[in-house]
């Protein structure tokens, strides 16, 4: 295969066997033997955040366009799914999801238009406009939340073709299926000419233009696909994980959280998006356990939240300075250390 940086990410040799084993564990063992807590509070939010991070990584990591407005597209996805389900009940939930993704994509493209003239901070600042505008609109116009006074929406029952996914295991399997399909298609896209165009635009926009890469189309494609994925992630976040959401839940902090996932996990790496999401979900749980064990009562939720902020912030800085390629680079290095001696022994 070509696309060396991509294939290098899929650890060579592991290949099909790893995929089969992984699928058996993820779709079989986990829902059968995993606790409700594990699936409800850990795995389902992990999957939603991972998909959002895949979306943002496509835009920021691969295509080099920084966005601080991811939460807006999560919100668009969630509210679009809700309204499609409410107002067009004859549609299947899968169709709702795809359409909601397309709505998010359309809005993403609109807010991506400035990217044709702006770069760097200016673009980052302009994506904040999406963040504030969407949050405002969802709170302001009751139509979006079926006239709930505070814009809160309640998730409908997840059901596809008569099969309902109400239990924690069901919602986990539903999310997993959606995330696997979406990630697979994203991987295909990244390995195609469009994917190479993203990186080309990121690495040297002028050279890309001279070669004949359509800058307009490439950037808008990145914004569109990215928002599509984040929109679907938003629907999962709202309907498979929280089940009751309000616009305030999609605030700027959420946008930063997704940006932090890809910085910590690894820019321009789909595996990094998953690793970063896992870290962001698991880390507070570990921190709160550790804090409670070490400090006891002093370690209340306020202290937890603040120390979490401090540690996450320091990690961002540390990764940017010491390992800009993120956790995934550490992981790969570790993997090589673990596998190399074995390889030598075998030969």
């Amino acid at each position: 295969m070509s696309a060396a940086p991509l294939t290098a990410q899929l650890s060579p040799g592991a290949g099909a066997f790893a995929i089969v084993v992984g699928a058996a564990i993820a779709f079989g063992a986990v829902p059968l033997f995993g606790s409700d807590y594990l699936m409800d509070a850990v795995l389902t939010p992990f999957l939603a955040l991972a998909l959002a991070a895949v979306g943002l990584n496509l835009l920021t990591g691969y295509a080099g366009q920084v966005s601080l407005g991811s939460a807006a597209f999560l919100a668009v996805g969630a509210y679009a799914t809700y309204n499609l389900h409410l107002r067009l009940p004859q549609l299947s939930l899968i169709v709702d999801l795809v359409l909601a993704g397309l709505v998010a994509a359309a809005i993403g493209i609109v807010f991506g238009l400035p990217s044709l003239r702006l770069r760097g901070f200016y673009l980052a600042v302009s994506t904040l406009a999406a963040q504030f505008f969407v949050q405002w609109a969802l709170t302001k116009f009751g139509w979006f939340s079926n006239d709930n006074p505070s814009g809160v929406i309640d998730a409908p029952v997840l059901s596809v073709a008569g099969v309902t996914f109400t239990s924690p295991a069901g919602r986990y399997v539903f999310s997993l299926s959606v995330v696997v399909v979406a990630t697979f298609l994203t991987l295909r896209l990244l390995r195609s000419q469009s994917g190479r165009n993203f990186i080309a635009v990121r690495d040297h926009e002028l050279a890309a233009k001279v070669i004949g890469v359509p800058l307009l189309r490439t950037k808008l494609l990145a914004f569109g696909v990215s928002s599509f994925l984040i929109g679907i992630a938003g629907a999962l976040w709202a309907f498979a994980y929280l089940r009751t959401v309000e616009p305030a839940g999609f605030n700027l902090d959420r946008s930063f959280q997704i940006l932090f996932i890809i910085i910590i996990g690894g820019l321009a790496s789909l595996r990094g998006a998953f690793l970063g999401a896992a870290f962001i979900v698991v880390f507070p749980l570990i921190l709160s356990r550790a804090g409670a064990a070490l400090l006891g009562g002093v370690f209340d939720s306020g202290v937890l939240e603040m120390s979490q902020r401090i540690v996450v912030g320091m990690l961002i800085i540390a990764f940017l300075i010491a390992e800009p390629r993120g956790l995934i680079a550490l992981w790969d290095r570790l993997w090589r250390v673990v596998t190399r001696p074995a390889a030598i022994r075998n030969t």
Partner: protein
Amino acid sequence: MFDYQFLIEVLVGGLLSGVMYSLVAIGFVLIYKTSGVLNFAQGAMLLFAALTFVSLVERAISFPLAFAITLAIMVVLGVSVERAVLRPLVNEPPITLFMATLGLSYVIEGAAQLLWGTQVHGLDIGISDVPLDIAGVFISRFDLFAATVAGSLVALFALFFRYTRTGLSFRAVADDPFAALAVGLRLPRVWASVWTASGIVALVAGLLWGARLGVQFSLSLVVLKALPVLVLGGFDSIAGAIIGGLLIGAIEKLAEVYVGPLFGGGIEAWAAYVVALVLLLVRPSGLFGQKLVERV
């Protein structure tokens, strides 16, 4: 009939709060001009300064002493941030530096609240908020005071960077860091003075905003008010920050009063961004920003 007196009132109110936006924006511009960093942590620094000051005052330390101590802490904070975070990243692309300051803002916000608690502190700097009646136009006394303080500080900085030796080196570094280095300017000293200045800005702005809104977490969000100002004025122009701040202040208030009702209100949150965005599409480097010719 159209109420012109009311229009003027709204406009003046907007311009006065605009001066405070300018003040925050200048904190950004100083650092941007010398280190090429959009310091997102400026808001967190502001929160940290205000919280520290209030907490000291609540512990029965006099205003001037609390001010001096907080200022010292801010300078130390600024200089150590420059050392520990920005210097190791000096040759990285600007957007990486930006993300680092994003992380930094989390650290500072977390630390400020871990240290001083998360409750809201009132801050009374002794200015009554009885509106002043000038020829039938009511103007908030507090706004006027805040604008005066902010305005003088802005003027002070403008003079400092125009007429002092450090100011001269500052402009040289901003113009061409390599050339400045080559002629023997000590970059670290310029950086340190810039971070000191931004610490002062953070403190003063923190106190002014804190007195108005209460000293609490949301104070760090003032940074979000400054961003459209920067976009409008250009990240690298002090004049742009001043005029951009006034413009945004005025536009925000006018939009809220005259356009807001059409949308059901609350458009303050994004009106400034939309205005800035529209301007960006016409002039990608702001009203006053330097237009860089890309060399191939």
